[in-house]
């Protein structure tokens, strides 16, 4: 092997190694993170939430400053969408591991007539003991749901379920500083939720 050939082969090997390092380790640092939902860039804090929580407590969004809050609007008689979403969120917490300690999942009931704080406590514990459910009078729930872009209305159900409640099924993420940052669609997976939550937990 001639000296020139050795130099050329060495240079090629160097280019391949440098290229691989740049592609796999350096380039990803400069590519902006792509969320799995719609980001919001409001300079105003997330609309306030003050509703009845477990054990007679009052739950306020501001109680969770320093934590990432996942807000979801659902109800305990919900036959499909709510259990699926809460199960995905529970799976997302598993994926996050210890980091999940800095995440608080809150479900606001859009069925305040049937969902008392006690009913919500039992229901949420079924998915994850750290999840909490909140409710309040119809006016308070309507105000909060409305400003979070959530529509809901009672609809005909079956004898077993009683009336149903049609509602917006998006999941909202409020960052550690209390700003509403992300709206995730119902179709999102647990892995995608965990990835997005992980970004806000950095």
């Amino acid at each position: 092997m001639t000296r020139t050939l050795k130099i050329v082969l060495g240079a090629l090997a160097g280019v391949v190694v440098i290229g691989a390092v740049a592609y796999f380790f350096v380039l990803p640092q400069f590519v902006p993170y792509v969320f799995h939902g719609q980001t919001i860039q409001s300079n105003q804090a997330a609309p306030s939430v003050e509703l009845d929580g477990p054990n007679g407590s009052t739950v306020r969004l501001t109680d969770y400053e320093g934590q990432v809050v996942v807000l979801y609007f659902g109800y305990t008689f919900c036959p499909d969408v709510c259990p699926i979403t809460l199960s995905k969120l529970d799976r997302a917490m598993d994926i996050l591991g210890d980091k999940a300690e800095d995440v608080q999942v809150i479900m606001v009931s859009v069925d305040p007539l049937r969902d008392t704080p006690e009913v919500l406590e039992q229901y949420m514990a079924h998915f994850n003991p750290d999840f909490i459910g909140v409710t309040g009078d119809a006016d308070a729930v309507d105000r909060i749901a409305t400003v979070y872009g959530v529509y809901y209305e009672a609809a005909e159900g079956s004898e077993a379920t009683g009336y149903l409640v049609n509602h917006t099924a998006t999941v909202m993420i409020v960052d550690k500083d209390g700003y509403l940052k992300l709206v995730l669609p119902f179709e999102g997976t647990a892995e995608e939720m965990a990835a997005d939550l992980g970004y806000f937990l950095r």
Partner: protein
Amino acid sequence: MFGSRCSIGLRFTGTMPEYIDRLRCRYWAERRSLNSRKLIWWIGIPGVLLVIGVMAFAIFEPIQVLPRIRLSPGYLLEDQAGQSFTSEDVRGDIVLYTFRYSGCGDECDGLDQTMIDVQRRLGEVDMGDTDFRLVTISFDPATDTTEVLTAEADAFGADGVEWRFATGEEAHLANVVKAGFKVWYEEQEDGSFSFDPTLILVDGWGVIRGEYEYQTLKSDADKIIHHLDILTEEIRNANGAAGLAYEAAHLFLCYP
């Protein structure tokens, strides 16, 4: 500059081994200096180019985006046909909202004309697969019954699909219009309303992308058509590398 071992000049002094040692020292010191200069070029030039690129992006705005201001409210209203009309019915569509009441007369002329102009000029925008809707919400449900809304809609040629007139329960309307859209209105003693004439542009995700509250030299219709152009361009380029560029534009606040 070459370190303590090279501080003596290269003039031949001392023994031959000492002189050779000084020459070697000088050689490696110059190599190190050369490498440092190369390193500065290799790191410095790309760094400067990167900074210039970012500044150019921010100044010349090759990609423009509309800000994602905040979530538009969820609502359950009733339209001019007496049908239930919800925020979910227009999810995925771009919607232009305005807020008025049937008794407002001349005060609403500007708002109404803007809605008509935007609808008339929609052909100027390449909407692609995205639907565009106009929604006029009345905050006077006591007067603006289904019959009144139907008459109003007919007068403006609102077909109930592309352009809907709607109203709802008083308390819910307050949550939707005042708390959600942040449009102020107040009933006066004589039954009329004081309000801020406002148009609001919402994207298919239900995120407010434009608020038009103050008349400027450029008409609201001109601004809205321009903004629709920007918004639909962003929707068309939402995926892949172009999508990343648009996200970067949001970071650098390339707002029109």
